[in-house]
């Protein structure tokens, strides 16, 4: 009886740990995060250009909600990458989109639009880089 109980408790511990490990292994959905920094693509780029170290501290690894105008779209191996405007011809905010967003991006492909993107900031390399991005809102430009 005692042995059965110990085995049961061990099994529960292993099960719970495995569940928590598998949950912790998943990347959080940026759209479900309440803890994000909202910033325009122009401001985000300007902050990195002004002081890369300070901006990296402020934005890297954080979930950002970035809004900007899409200036270029690339498709690499079924994954879209969007370039957002910065008012600076040297660089953009480059957003690597999740493959899950492909359908939502179809209206963007035919015509440039203003977009709101949620994703993780990786830092600055000529451009501000973001990955794991998802689409928030798409706004028509008049």
């Amino acid at each position, binding site marked *: 009886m005692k042995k059965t109980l110990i085995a049961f408790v061990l099994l529960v511990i292993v099960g719970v740990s495995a569940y928590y490990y598998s949950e*912790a292994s998943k990347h959080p959905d940026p759209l479900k995060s309440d803890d994000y920094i909202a910033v325009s693509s122009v401001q985000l780029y300007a902050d990195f250009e002004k002081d890369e170290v300070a901006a*990296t501290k402020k934005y890297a690894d954080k979930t950002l909600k970035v809004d900007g105008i899409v200036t270029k779209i690339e498709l690499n191996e079924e*994954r879209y*990458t969007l370039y957002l405007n910065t008012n600076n011809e040297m660089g953009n905010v480059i957003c*690597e989109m999740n493959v899950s967003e492909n359908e939502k991006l179809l209206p963007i492909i035919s015509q440039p639009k203003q977009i709101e993107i949620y994703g993780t900031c*990786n*830092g600055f390399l000529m451009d501000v*880089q973001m990955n794991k991005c998802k689409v928030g809102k798409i706004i028509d430009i008049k």
Partner: protein
Amino acid sequence: MKLKIVSLLLLSFVLNFSIEAQTYFTKTGTIKFESKTKLEDIKAENRKVLSVLNTSTGALSFTLLMKAFDFPNKIMQDHFNESYAESDLYPKASFAGSISNIKQIDFTKNGTYTANFTGQLTIKNVTKTISDQATIVVKDGKISATSKIKVKPADYNFKIPAPVVGKIADELDVFIQLNYEQKK
């Protein structure tokens, strides 16, 4: 005097134009690595590699942000950035080198060419010379380069803690794919 200035301007324009015409770049190159052991397979991919290729001189370089490596498993990604790569301290990795047989590659003609490259690979402020081969494909004015190199984490000051030894391979397979566009 005026004529001299005009001709100088013209010359610099022509030079500038010809240099730019030979410069190809990408901001969305891919570098992925794989570590395979009996205990665990680890892979990660960076799809925002910045690379420049000069088809005249053969100069080739790339740079990437360590934090832009995307791991399917978040825990592995956190460990990589915090413990092994120490990405806050060493945010970038880079390569600067050249293709030695650049003259044998005809960038104006469709085809598949083998390029021999040598250069300095810097990760975590440790610089090592690497030499290997890449395959360059020229198709309708578009240039792409692929290569597979081996990188030993221990060479670049990656400290693997005792409990994880055996889960991370001594040598990583690194796959490079760069699809260039011409600088305008």
